C-alpha cells in the first residue's frame, strides 16, 4: 500500500496518472449509462466495457502538460477516448464496396416490418445508377398492401425499371426477376422483400428459399436506428438463418442514438455498409465509423 501511494505520488510529480480500477470506476459507470441509453445491447455493453477496461488498466497517461501546465485531461477522459477508439475499431472499417461482379449482381434486402427496406431499395438503385450501373428493382413483397405500387413509384422517380407481376409468389418474382435482368441486360438486381419477424417460421422459410434460389452476392439486413434491445436477438436470428453479408441502418436523420449498430456488428460480425439519412432517395451514405461511434457514445 505504501509503495502504491509512493508510485502515484511520483507519477503525479511527472504530470502523469495510472489508470487503476479505482480511477476507471466512475468512467466505466458513466460510459455504461450512456451506451445503454443509446440502445446498445446489455451483453454487448458488458463485453465492450470489459474489453476497454482490460486494455486500459495499468496504463500511465499524461494529465498535465510540459512545465506542469494543466492539460485539463483526467484519467476518466483517457478512458472515454479509449472507448471511442475501440468503438471506431469495432464498428469499422468504413463501408466496403458492394460486390458488383455478378452477371447480374443480386442484392437481397431483408429485415423487420417498417425498417426501411423498400425505400432503401430505391436508394440503392439510384446510387448504383449514378455509378453507371443498370439496376433492376424486383418487387418481391407480396404481403403488404400496395408494396409493389410503392416500389413502382420509387422506380419511376429515378427511371429505374421495376419487375412486378401480380399473382406471382415471392420466390417466383425473385427468380424471374433475376432471369429478366439477364435477358434485358440489367447488371444489378435489387430484390425488395416483405418485412418479417425472425420468429415467423413460414416467412423466414420464404426468404431462405429466395436466397437459396438466387444466390445473392449481397444479402443486406435493413434495420431502423431507433430499435432497442431487440436488435440483438433479431439480428442474430436473421444472421443464423440467412448469413447476411452486411447491414444498413436507416432513419439516422432523427435523434435515435443508433446503438443497435454496435450490437449487430458485435453479435454477427457483419459490416455496416450504408446509412439511411432521410426519406428521399438521395439520402444514402456509405458507412464511416467515426460519426456513428460519436453518436452512440454520446
Amino acid at each position: 500500500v505504501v509503495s502504491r501511494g509512493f508510485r502515484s505520488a511520483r507519477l503525479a510529480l511527472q504530470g502523469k496518472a495510472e489508470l487503476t480500477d479505482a480511477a476507471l470506476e466512475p468512467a466505466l459507470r458513466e460510459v455504461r449509462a450512456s451506451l445503454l441509453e443509446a440502445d446498445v445491447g446489455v451483453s454487448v455493453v458488458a463485453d465492450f466495457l470489459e474489453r476497454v477496461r482490460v486494455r486500459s488498466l495499468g496504463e500511465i497517461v499524461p494529465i498535465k502538460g510540459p512545465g506542469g501546465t494543466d492539460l485539463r485531461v483526467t484519467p476518466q477522459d483517457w478512458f472515454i477516448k479509449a472507448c471511442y477508439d475501440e468503438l471506431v475499431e469495432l464498428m469499422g472499417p468504413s463501408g466496403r464496396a458492394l460486390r458488383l461482379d455478378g452477371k447480374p449482381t443480386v442484392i437481397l434486402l431483408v429485415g423487420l416490418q417498417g425498417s426501411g427496406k423498400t425505400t432503401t431499395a430505391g436508394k440503392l438503385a439510384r446510387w448504383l445508377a449514378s455509378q453507371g450501373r443498370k439496376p433492376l428493382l424486383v418487387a418481391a413483397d407480396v404481403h403488404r398492401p400496395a408494396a409493389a405500387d410503392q416500389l413502382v413509384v420509387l422506380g419511376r422517380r429515378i427511371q429505374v425499371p421495376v419487375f412486378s407481376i401480380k399473382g406471382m409468389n415471392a420466390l417466383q418474382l425473385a427468380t424471374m426477376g433475376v432471369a429478366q435482368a439477364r435477358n434485358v441486360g440489367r447488371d444489378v438486381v435489387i430484390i425488395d422483400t416483405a418485412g418479417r419477424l425472425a420468429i415467423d417460421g413460414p416467412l423466414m422459410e420464404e426468404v431462405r428459399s429466395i436466397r437459396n434460389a438466387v444466390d445473392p452476392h449481397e444479402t443486406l439486413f435493413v434495420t431502423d436506428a431507433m430499435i432497442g434491445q431487440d436488435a440483438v436477438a433479431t439480428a442474430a436470428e436473421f444472421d443464423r438463418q440467412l448469413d447476411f453479408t452486411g447491414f444498413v441502418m436507416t432513419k439516422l436523420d432523427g435523434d435515435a442514438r443508433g446503438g443497435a449498430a454496435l450490437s449487430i456488428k458485435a453479435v454477427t460480425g457483419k459490416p455496416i455498409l450504408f446509412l439511411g439519412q432521410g426519406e428521399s432517395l438521395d439520402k444514402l451514405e456509405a458507412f464511416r465509423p467515426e460519426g456513428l461511434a460519436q453518436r452512440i457514445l454520446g
Partner: protein
Amino acid sequence: AALRETAHDGRAQALEDVLLQADVGLKTAQALVARAGAADDPVEAIRRELRALLGEPSEWTFPTRPGPLVVMIVGVTGSGKTTTIGKLARRWTNEGKRVLIGAADTFRAAATEQVAVWAERAGADLVRAGEGADPGAVAYDATSAGVARGMDVVLIDTAGRLQTARPLMDELSKVRRAMNKARSGAPDEVWLVLDGTVGQNAISQALAFHEATALTGVIVTKLDGTAKGGAVVAVAHQTGLPIRWLGLGERAEDLRPFDRDAFVDAILG
C-alpha cells in the same frame, strides 16, 4: 466487477438486466431495483411498481354522444399507423359502426393505395386526394364528410415523420387545426403509434408528438415479435398518457385493447 455497484448483489443485477433487455431503460430499471431490491419477493415488488408506473388502467369505450368520433393517428415513419387504422376500422365496422378513413398521407409513395386496400377490407368509406395534395385539406374534407354522411367514426391517417423534423411537426399541428375547423372540438382522440421494437427514443417521440398535437393516447405495435416494448413504461409515466391498443400482427384482427397486467407480466418474462 466494478459495475456490480449499481446493484447490491448478483440477484439484483439479474433483475436489472431483465428490465434493461425489455427496453425499460437504465434510470427506470435502477429505480425499480433499488426500491424492490430489499423486499422479500423483489420480482413481485417490481411487478407492482411497473403497474404503478403505467398508471391505473382506464378502459376506453366508444363515446355515446352524437358523432362522428374523430381520431387522428400520428407517429414516426414505419411505426404501423396505416395498418393500425385498418385494424381499428375493421373492429368498429364489425361492431356495426359506420367508419370513414381520411387518407391524409399525401407524401409517401403509394400511401393512398395502401390505405385504400385497408378501407376496402374494413368496409369503410375513404376520402382521398392526389399525391402532393395538402394534408390539412384532406383531413378537413374527411372530417366534413364524416359529419355530412352521419358517420360514427372518422380515422385520419397521417404521413410518418421523425419528431426532430420541425417543419413536419408544424405541419401536424396544422392538420389538427384543419380538423377542428371542419368540426369544432375535433379531433376527439389523437393516438401516437409507437413501434414496439423501439428503444429509448420512444420518450423523445412521445414528448415531441405530445407537444405538437396534444396526444390523448398511445398505441404500441409489433409486440407479436420478441420485443417487450418496455420503453412505453417511461412514456406512460412521463406523459401520463393512457396506452389504448396493442398491435399484435399484420392482419385486421391483430389488435387488442391494452391489458396493463399482461403487458407487465410479459416484461418480467
